[in-house]
């Protein structure tokens, strides 16, 4: 038998590129899951999926201009994602159509434009890079980017925490006591976008959402306290990053999907054994209390 702990750690001890991949994924594990927690609490889980598609045309435009260049593709992705988020938010506030419908409209336009742009110049290999990321080829610039996004996200969440919670729980109340509702909402959408752009570097567009949402949803099976949800989701994401990367190395699997599948396995496990509404809890019900 191989030592499970040793085989978990060995690739990171042995190879620099594995350590870089781990550092990048851990940076993302600290920032994306808290954003995901707020997304799921706002019932906007699928919004991040839409946003990840919306980023594509921007990244593709950057790719068309500068090839596989990190700054160009990141900038393009940011611009496209923020544009779609702001347009959808602005149209929602100006009309009576709900935000999810507007977002769906704008992201479909954006996605179609992105596919068109990629097909203008890209080959199949480029497309695979888009979709599955390049976590094993993170250079210094990419690591700085992920670290920067992580820092910015945590600072922004700390600053916005109270109005953001109020905006989630009772937007009408926040509107009557303060004008910060709109700016806070847009700032939060911007956080979603920059984290997806970061995840896009490490995991690719399709899977960037995975590290944002799966740990957040899994954490809800463990606690009902918002202050605990966030650290638990970070912990789950970090665990998924380490085990996913390690497994991908041992079994020679693509690393992006391996990380997300690891997060998915943690979600399934949480769903089964989690103390807050987990399935096992439903089967083994302790007798009710007196009062």
């Amino acid at each position: 038998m191989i030592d499970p702990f040793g085989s978990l750690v060995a690739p990171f001890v042995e190879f620099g590129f594995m350590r870089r991949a781990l550092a990048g994924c851990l940076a993302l594990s600290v920032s994306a899951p808290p954003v995901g927690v707020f997304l799921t609490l706002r019932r906007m889980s699928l919004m991040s999926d839409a946003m990840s598609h919306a980023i594509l045309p921007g990244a593709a435009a950057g790719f068309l201009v500068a090839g596989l260049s990190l700054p160009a593709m990141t900038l393009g992705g940011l611009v496209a994602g923020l544009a779609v988020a702001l347009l959808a938010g602005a149209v929602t506030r100006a009309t009576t159509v709900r935000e999810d419908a507007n977002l769906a409209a704008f992201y479909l336009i954006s996605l179609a434009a992105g596919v068109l742009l990629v097909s203008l110049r890209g080959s199949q290999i480029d497309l695979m890079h888009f979709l599955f990321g390049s976590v094993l080829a993170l250079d210094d610039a990419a690591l700085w980017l992920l670290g920067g996004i992580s820092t910015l996200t945590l600072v922004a969440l700390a600053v916005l925490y109270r109005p953001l919670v109020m905006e989630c729980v009772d937007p009408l109340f926040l509107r009557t006591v303060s004008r910060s509702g709109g700016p806070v909402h847009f700032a939060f959408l911007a956080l979603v976008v920059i984290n997806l752009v970061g995840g896009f570097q490490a995991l690719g567009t399709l899977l960037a959402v995975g590290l944002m949402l799966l740990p957040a949803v899994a954490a809800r099976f463990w606690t009902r306290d918002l202050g605990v949800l966030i650290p638990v989701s970070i912990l789950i994401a970090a665990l998924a990053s380490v085990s996913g990367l390690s497994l991908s190395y041992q079994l020679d699997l693509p690393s992006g999907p391996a990380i997300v599948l690891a997060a998915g396995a943690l979600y399934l496990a949480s769903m089964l054994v989690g103390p807050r509404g987990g399935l096992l809890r439903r089967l083994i019900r302790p007798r009710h209390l007196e009062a």
Partner: protein
Amino acid sequence: MSATTIPVPDPIRLVSLTLGYDRHPAIHHLDGTVHAGDLLALVGPNGAGKSTLLKGMVGEIPCLDGRVERSGAIAYMPQADEIDRSFPLSVMDLAGMGLWRRAGAWRSLSRQRRAIEAALAAVGLDGFEARPIGTLSGGQFRRALFARLILQDCPVILLDEPFTGIDARTVDDLLALIRGWHAEGRTVVAALHDLAQVRAHFPMTLLLAREPIAWGPTARVLTAENLARARNLSEAWDEGAPVCAGPRISGNHDHGAHGHHHHEDAA
């Protein structure tokens, strides 16, 4: 609770106010003043525009015509709140939101803990501080929202059918709270359906049926004749309704020619 200094100017003035949806007015050219210290009941059949008027007063919906002149902070409790009860939030945190004007986004609430506990005790929710809001009953939740109103400490308080679905004992408690606000000199406007309750506790009444039927001392407003007129309101919109011929209101103008009912105690 610390007493708020009540501003002398009238907290809410309505100038030819028209509110509605898709150009159809739910409130049609309403003039009047809510005076400082008023305890005013809004009465009228379903669709009379009570909720719409409260939303207009607080600025939640735009005016189709005319305007609302406010002075000072207004606390508002909607009829159907948009609160997500599944959100992992404690009763303490929900009530603590009322401190926003004092604490803002960053100041610590730990020093206000006593104030929050006192507000929860005032609505009979002592011991509920740590309970998640999702575990409260409808009546308990209403009480928690009243605790938030206490903490908001506003000179003007608007309540939209605050007692719907609430048991008699809780209603009595909350009415006592409202009388206390009135005694402190605060202005309270509440949309209500229980006429006996209005007659017993609310000195002033505005009877609405899309058009204002009467506005003044409750005994003079809630007459059989006025109530019969209010009941005759047609709830349905007239899709072919003509465009209102009344003048558009942008500034000061004489509105007497338009033939609408005016504030009885406007003097």
